[in-house]
């Protein structure tokens, strides 16, 4: 009788939900008064926790993490956050049967420093084992759409413009079943419609074991790499796979992330792919629909010690102020700062920049350029973490000295930078539109970290919000040149994807003490050049491409 009562009582109790993660989420990190950055995640109302359906990092797919996208889905002028999640995946995860997948989360920015979870209303819970996502207005209707890349399941969500999204994957023809890990929007043929490049990782086989280290899981070379895919937008809501025709079919690599940018400033967007344990690839676009891989000749395939270790992410910005884009690559292994030289080749200055010494202890994942102090040069935040254990490591704030040499500013950055975090994705954004760049880090088996920029130095800034007309509506691919007195800055409106994440797509310029903008030149992907003069500083400037 006692047993029966006990059993009845037990059944009457609510079932204890399976833990989302084998570790407790990091509690809020209290900033000290002088800290440059403050963890405001909880204060902002972001309760997301990355679902980690295992007790440990038991295989290579579990080492990578899930990311986030920064985009303004409702056009209210404040960027919103979309955070991706994993779920049970046969052969990869290990959780009790029936463990539900936790949803991706869309957080609407209220504009007052707080966010509200609108996932259910938006229809963006997603499915599967999501890795990364990218936002772009592929149908030019004025509302940013979403492509989510995941392992075995990727999805395209069309933004209806009313706060809801519809899954149009099948209709659009972009449901590639590979191990999706990164994606980016780009208009490679400059026809005014955004195309889509999807990076696939490797073909995972659960039975593989490490030959060298019986206690460790096998590395990427133990598995066959998967080819990446370029989808051309037909302009009618459907896409076609043009990978082969575009010269982009390149099997044998294990891609981790992709950065679309105009490497040679010829008006045609190029692609740089970060690969795991094989050389990185730079595909130059000839403007006629064809790409050529030139990474070895250009000097961006290997690191400075002649090795091709696991590359996670490539951040793009003009690090040395010469007007050309440079590349910062994070790796499990020696990273790279590829600085473009006048002859079009790149020098890896990881050692002479000081970054080699500053980053040598850490496995770098999401590295992102941002001018956090608005002094006109591009600094770095690097999310670090272990590939083997769930314990965290420090995040780095690295201050550009103005000449592509860097100093460690982590101590001034604040308590967050001394807090162990198993960082993965890293996105730069200005969520409160105050002109000071904040950042968001996603972490493995943990909550994300939204870091609010508290720098007070009186420096000025300009942020642009572009709208293409003949060009793609997102303005991706527009080349920008800004002159403010003695300061000239060049940049590009890109789809700013990195490892697992997409940053705030609004181009941002730190202006230092300059109080007037003499000239802004926008070279649109359509070929039209627009010039604006005598502009005020400290504003978010909307720039619409002139109609023909």
């Amino acid at each position, binding site marked *: 009788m006692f047993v029966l009562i006990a059993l009845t009582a037990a059944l009457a109790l609510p079932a204890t939900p399976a833990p989302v993660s084998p570790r407790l989420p990091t509690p809020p990190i209290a900033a000290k008064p002088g800290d440059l950055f403050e963890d405001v995640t909880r204060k902002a109302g972001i309760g997301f926790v990355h679902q980690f359906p295992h007790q440990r990092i038991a295989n290579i797919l579990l080492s990578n993490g899930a990311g986030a996208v920064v985009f303004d889905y409702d056009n209210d002028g404040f960027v919103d956050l979309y955070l991706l999640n994993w779920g049970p995946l046969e052969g990869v995860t290990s959780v009790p049967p029936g463990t539900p997948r936790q949803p991706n989360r869309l957080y609407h920015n209220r504009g007052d420093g707080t966010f509200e979870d609108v996932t259910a209303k938006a229809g963006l819970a997603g499915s599967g084992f999501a890795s990364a996502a990218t936002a772009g207005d592929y149908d030019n209707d004025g509302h940013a759409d979403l492509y989510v890349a995941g392992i075995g399941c990727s999805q395209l969500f069309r933004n209806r413009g009313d706060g809801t999204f519809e899954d149009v994957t099948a209709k659009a023809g972009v449901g590639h079943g590979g191990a999706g890990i990164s994606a980016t929007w780009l208009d490679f043929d400059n026809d005014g419609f955004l195309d889509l490049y999807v990076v696939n990782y490797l073909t995972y086989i659960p039975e593989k074991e490490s030959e060298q*280290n019986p206690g460790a899981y*096998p590395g990427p070379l133990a598995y066959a790499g998967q080819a990446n895919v370029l989808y051309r937008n037909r302009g009618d809501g459907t896409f076609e796979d043009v990978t082969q025709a575009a010269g982009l079919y390149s099997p044998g690599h294990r891609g981790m992330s992709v950065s679309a940018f105009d490497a040679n400033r010829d008006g045609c967007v190029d692609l740089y792919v970060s690969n795991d344990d094989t050389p990185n690839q730079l595909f130059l676009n000839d403007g006629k629909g064809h790409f050529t891989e030139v990474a070895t000749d250009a000097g961006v395939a290997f690191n400075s010690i002649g090795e*091709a270790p696991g590359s996670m992410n490539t951040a793009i910005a003009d690090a040395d102020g010469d007007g050309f884009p440079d590349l910062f690559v994070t790796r499990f292994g020696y990273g790279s700062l590829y600085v473009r030289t006048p002859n079009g080749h790149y020098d890896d200055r990881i050692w002479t920049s000081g970054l080699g010494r500053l980053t040598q202890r850490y496995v770098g994942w999401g590295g992102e350029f941002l001018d956090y102090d608005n002094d006109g040069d591009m600094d770095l935040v690097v999310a670090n973490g272990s590939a083997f254990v769930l314990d965290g490591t420090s995040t780095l704030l690295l201050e550009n000295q103005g000449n592509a040499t860097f100093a460690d500013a982590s101590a001034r950055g604040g308590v967050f930078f001394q807090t162990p975090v198993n960082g993965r994705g890293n996105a730069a954004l200005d969520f409160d539109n105050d002109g000071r760049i904040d950042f968001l880090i996603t972490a493995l088996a943990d909550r994300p970290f939204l870091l609010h920029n508290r720098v007070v130095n009186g420096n000025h800034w300009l942020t642009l919000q572009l709208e293409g007309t003949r060009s793609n509506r997102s303005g991706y691919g527009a080349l920008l040149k800004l002159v403010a007195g003695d300061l000239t800055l060049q940049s590009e409106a890109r789809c700013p994807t990195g490892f697992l994440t997409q940053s705030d797509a609004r181009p941002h310029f730190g202006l230092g003490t300059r109080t007037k903008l003499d000239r802004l030149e926008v070279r649109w992907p359509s070929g039209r050049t627009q010039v604006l003069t005598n502009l005020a500083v400290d504003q978010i400037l909307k720039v619409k491409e002139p109609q023909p």
Partner: protein
Amino acid sequence: MTKSPSFRSTPFGSDPVAGGGDPGSTRFNQIHAVDFGRDGPPGRPGRSRTARRVLALSFALPTLACAIWAADAPEKTHLARTVTMRKMADSLHAVIVADQKIYVEQVAQKRPSAGDTPSHAEMLRKASQAIQKKGAEFSYTLRSLTPINPNSGPQTEGEQTGLAFVTKRPDEAYYTEEELGGRSYFTAVYAERATLTSCVDCHNQQPGSPRKDWKTGDVMGAIVVRVPLEF
């Protein structure tokens, strides 16, 4: 210690029962015994061919069984099962310098003025990159404290220290462990001497060369071999 399946299937695997001879040669001896029977031993003349064959088989089958048993028997206990990082690096270095020497002597020196003949440094770099493209678990590169190309200068603290070491003590290698981007490496640095007058002449004549008084036998740089200690 148990044998791995791969050793069992290898004809040249170890054979402790036979006292160190390889099982391949043991089997070879047994086949000779069969042949001996076919020719007929002394004192047994007149036996039919069929009878000799039966007799031969009756010897051969048990002998073959013994050979198979011997192949499955416990193996030697003193065989090497691992290669040390130092030995691996030394071996890689030996291959690199041998290839380099032959390339310089057989190709570069014979076509010194040919514009399409890469220098030995370019050859080394291209070979290293070709290996990396296949997904290698080691890497190597050429370094110098006085490089013609600035990118060939030391790129890590380990390289800096190793180059200084082998410059002073060129007959010794410098070994260390490094952590680069959170990944641990075994790093070995080997002196690279100017062995031929063509090396000296080339470096002394290069417009960008920071040093132009090289002599044969000088340590011009080093070959750095790295083996990652994590995948």
